[in-house]
């Protein structure tokens, strides 16, 4: 700026003034930024790591881990921050853009492929503490989910989840049924099998007529047999993954990093058709009545629904319901001959922007260690990825009188299907969500998924 020839003294003065103002503004904002990013308090020696997660129920467990880690590593301070799922990803992206993101954060399979392609994650293999990463010490398959297309490990397996069905024993009793009646249910997309018979029997209309009796009024239902978790978007994790997968259907053409989705498969479309067909039969609440934020936990609690399929991360939410004699049943077997649950796992990733990659790796290594995962397991909130952590969680749930074997048996039996890890997650969601909502509402036919699938697969053709 000073190298320019100024023609008039007045203009030069203005320019100088301008540069002073801009200079001071910049300085002020830098001070502000520095204030955000720098370590609080301690001047020099202590290193501060920011760790983010989205599940509020998990905060106490991870705070205990962080405390234990700090004790073992004097000079490293870990700050645990929690944001709700919606805010989490926006804040994370915004802070990564601003260069002020966390050092370590909980990562999700739908999101991390895009982070990898944008180069914002550090591969664990490159860092001292996590170099010798061994995926075999975790529950089978979990570590593979976090291997990028380049073969590098981008996440430390943290936990896993599967699907089962929650119910209220009192409601079952009123229907003249016992928990044993929910064992070994059979389902198929044609007539719904014994599973549909149970749902029908548990549905009650305003006159007290049950769904499998004559004169049932599907327009005036008081208790629905099956709770609604919404349309399920791209993966239907709690809504329909366990139905469609039990027909032998798979999301994509590969376990991980598939580049072709199978939403055009007749088995998938038949499963979706059966599920959302329950609305007209009066066995499941309509889209109109549950709206944009359906809550299967609340539907069970209020008696609006009798059977509430949900993920293992919600066990403690159901466990805390007042006046509900809680039971958990295994999801029904499908045409494939056994039940199939989605098998999803979270991971901890290291931001490429961290100032302390080695210390961050140390922390991530600790998060993946048996010690930390047993601490988290004992909290009885989620199933940690290490078998010892899983056992600790099972014991913690048992202490509260909750038998979680319907969730864990599926993993032991390997009756699971992996969460679809592919690129283009956000675009696929934006294409899929309105159509799935439309199918739930009844304004779209399941056959429209064929065109949707074509559109989705063309996303992969574009980018080699």
């Amino acid at each position, binding site marked *: 700026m000073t190298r320019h020839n100024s023609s008039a003294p007045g203009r030069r003065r203005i320019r100088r003034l301008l540069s002073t103002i801009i200079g001071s503004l910049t300085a002020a904002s830098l001070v502000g930024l520095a204030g955000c990013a720098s370590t609080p308090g301690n001047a020099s020696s202590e290193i501060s790591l920011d760790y983010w997660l989205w599940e509020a129920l998990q905060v106490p467990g991870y705070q205990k881990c962080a405390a234990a880690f700090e004790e073992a590593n004097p000079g490293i301070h870990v700050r645990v921050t929690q944001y709700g799922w919606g805010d989490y990803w926006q804040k994370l992206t915004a802070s990564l853009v601003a260069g002020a993101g966390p050092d370590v954060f909980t990562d999700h399979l739908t999101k991390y492929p895009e982070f990898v392609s*944008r180069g914002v994650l550090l591969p664990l293999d490159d860092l001292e503490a996590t170099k010798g990463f061994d995926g075999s010490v975790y529950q089978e398959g979990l570590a593979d989910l976090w291997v990028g297309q380049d073969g590098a490990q981008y996440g430390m397996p943290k936990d896993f989840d599967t699907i089962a069905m929650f119910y209220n024993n009192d409601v079952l009793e009123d229907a003249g049924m016992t928990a044993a009646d929910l064992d070994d249910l059979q389902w198929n997309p044609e007539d719904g099998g014994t599973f549909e018979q149970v749902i029908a029997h548990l549905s009650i209309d305003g006159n007290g007529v049950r769904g499998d009796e004559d004169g049932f009024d599907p327009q005036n239902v008081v208790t629905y047999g099956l709770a609604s978790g919404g349309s399920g978007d791209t993966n239907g994790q709690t809504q329909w993954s366990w139905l469609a997968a039990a027909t032998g259907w798979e999301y994509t053409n590969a376990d991980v990093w598939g580049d072709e989705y199978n939403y055009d498969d007749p088995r998938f479309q038949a499963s979706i058709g059966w599920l959302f067909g329950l609305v007209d039969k009066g066995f499941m609440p309509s889209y109109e009545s549950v*709206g944009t934020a359906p809550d299967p936990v609340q539907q069970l609690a209020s008696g609006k629904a009798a059977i509430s399929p949900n993920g293992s991360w919600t066990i403690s939410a159901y466990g805390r319901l007042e006046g509900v004699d809680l039971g958990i049943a295994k999801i029904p077997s499908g045409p494939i001959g056994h039940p199939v649950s989605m098998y999803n796992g979270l991971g901890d990733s290291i931001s490429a922007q961290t100032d302390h990659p080695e210390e961050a790796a140390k922390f991530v290594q600790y998060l993946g260690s048996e010690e930390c995962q047993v601490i988290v397991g004992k909290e009885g909130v989620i199933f940690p990825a290490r078998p010892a952590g899983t056992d600790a969680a099972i014991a913690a749930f048992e202490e509260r009188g909750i038998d979680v074997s319907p969730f864990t048996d599926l993993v032991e039996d390997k009756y699971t299907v992996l969460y679809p890890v592919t690129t283009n997650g956000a675009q696929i969601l934006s294409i899929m969500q*309105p159509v799935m909502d439309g199918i739930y509402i009844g304004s779209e036919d399941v056959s429209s998924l064929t065109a949707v699938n074509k559109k989705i697969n063309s996303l992969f053709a574009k980018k080699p």
Partner: protein
Amino acid sequence: MAITTQNLTRQGAVPPPATPTRNKQPDDTKLALLLILPATIGLVTFYFWPLLRGIWLSFTSWDLLSAAKFVGADNYVRMVQDPVFWNAIGATLYFVAVNIGIQTIVALGLAVLMQRLTGSILVRSLILTPFLVSNVVAALVFFWILDFQLGIGNQMLEWIGLDRIGFFTSEDWAIPTVALVNVWRHMGYTALLIFAGLQAIPASLYEAARVDGASEIRMFKAITVPLLRPILGLVLIISVIGSFQVFDTISVTTGGGPVNATRVLQVYIYDNAFAQFDFGYASALSVAMLAILMIVTFVQYRITRAGQTDLN
């Protein structure tokens, strides 16, 4: 008067001096520039620069984290072929039509009542109260009132023997519901603007009309509406622009659904920018919105002749 004449005569008689006395005073230009500098910096930083950058970004592919890549007119080609974009235009126009149509009529009625019926400050203030509630709060309150299961609105429908309505959850009802929530919030404010215009109409006109035996309705048609036209034009331009930009009411209630029923242009822009981080395409959509608003404003200005008045 006398001084002016004196000056005139002096200037007429004596040829203007080479250096007029005025020029001896310090030149104010620098001070003036300095004083408008803060505003200019603001204008450039917060309006011109983002505008230019936005237009530039609409020709790129940019995901925030990697560098923007120039892609020519790709985003615009994609936009023209994007059915969700055209659906968004349709949804936006539908929203604006319902919102502005009802809002203007109700506000005009309210303003005339305020003017002709009551002078009570209390009543006039009460009409403005919905505007004091933030958009998000108003939207959420109605979201609860009209909830399918728990809403008192639906409970009342049931009491009078009607079926419950999914105000926010059915594709047919979503846009009218959101539009009416906005009408509820903005009608008082709009009425106030129109009321200010009514105050400018001389009372003598009404007196004269009353002497001639004109009815209230006739006076409304022959005096109020024609003389209110410039104000009404201005109010329409402001409220239509605001209406096109509807976002908060939808974002906190339907989020663009059910399906795409309420995915208006702003919501679609937001989805692309902040959910999919496709800032290039979102910028192109924003430029389209800018173009639409410029056209709408120009046409409205012309049709309502808002720059002219019949009051002279």
